[in-house]
């Protein structure tokens, strides 16, 4: 697939990268239709995040179409159009169950 990659401070490039794979039972693979730039992308782009490496794929606020689902996915199926929340939440810990998802 094609991806927008960070190539260095204030440098990006569109590259062909390996296709993503389902790694966990709850994973979904999406064909991204639209993505946007977040304020935090500016920190990544400017090289302020020490663990950022050249080649890292940018874009964490996006929407698209489901093309593959893991065996434990119940709420979505292939073909669904979805918007992705950039916070990953487990749904099971004390914070999630008290609706403090970003903790």
């Amino acid at each position, binding site marked *: 697939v094609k991806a927008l990659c960070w190539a260095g401070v204030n440098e990006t490039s569109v590259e062909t990268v390996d296709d993503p794979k389902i790694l966990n039972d709850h994973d979904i693979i999406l064909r991204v239709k639209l993505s946007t730039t977040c304020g935090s992308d500016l920190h990544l782009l400017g090289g302020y995040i020490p663990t950022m490496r050249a080649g890292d794929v940018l874009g964490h606020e996006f929407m698209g179409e489901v093309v593959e689902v893991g065996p434990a996915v119940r709420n979505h199926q292939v073909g669904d159009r979805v918007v992705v929340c950039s916070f990953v939440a487990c749904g*099971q810990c004390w914070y999630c169950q008290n609706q403090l998802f970003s903790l």
Partner: protein
Amino acid sequence: VSSPVSRVTQAGVNAAGHLAREIQRRLGGDATQAGDTEPRSRWRSVTINRSAEEVMPAGRVPEPLAALGDRIEVRVRTAPGGKGTELAARLRQSEPAGLGSVSSRVSGDDPRQKVRSALREAKQLIEVGEVLRVDPVPHGTRTATPTGKLVEVATRRAGGEGLL
């Protein structure tokens, strides 16, 4: 008679020595309890959003902590604030110290790292039912740089005592 400067210096040295002992005591934990001469590491714990019975059904130590067998002691107690259960473990050996401590952390063969990752994985398995994998992620062209190497090493090692 010591000069004011040397007295201040001496006070500083004493304070630094006290601080170092205090840090050592805290890092070393309650390894030297009265009546217990066997060395122990300090307790490490995670809070799990489940009852004690769900964390250790019939007193069984959860996986993958159970795989550490007799090398560790495990305890559970109710977490404050209605947050579930605290699951804690400590090694039946003293806390590695000095240079050996640093080298075992860097080499990735460190008993403390085994305890910490087993505790985190036990929490994930009990609460969510799986240990989330994030690697490998697709990426574009990488150039080999010294800082990139450092990040790679840190990422490989970080799993033992935290996540990067």
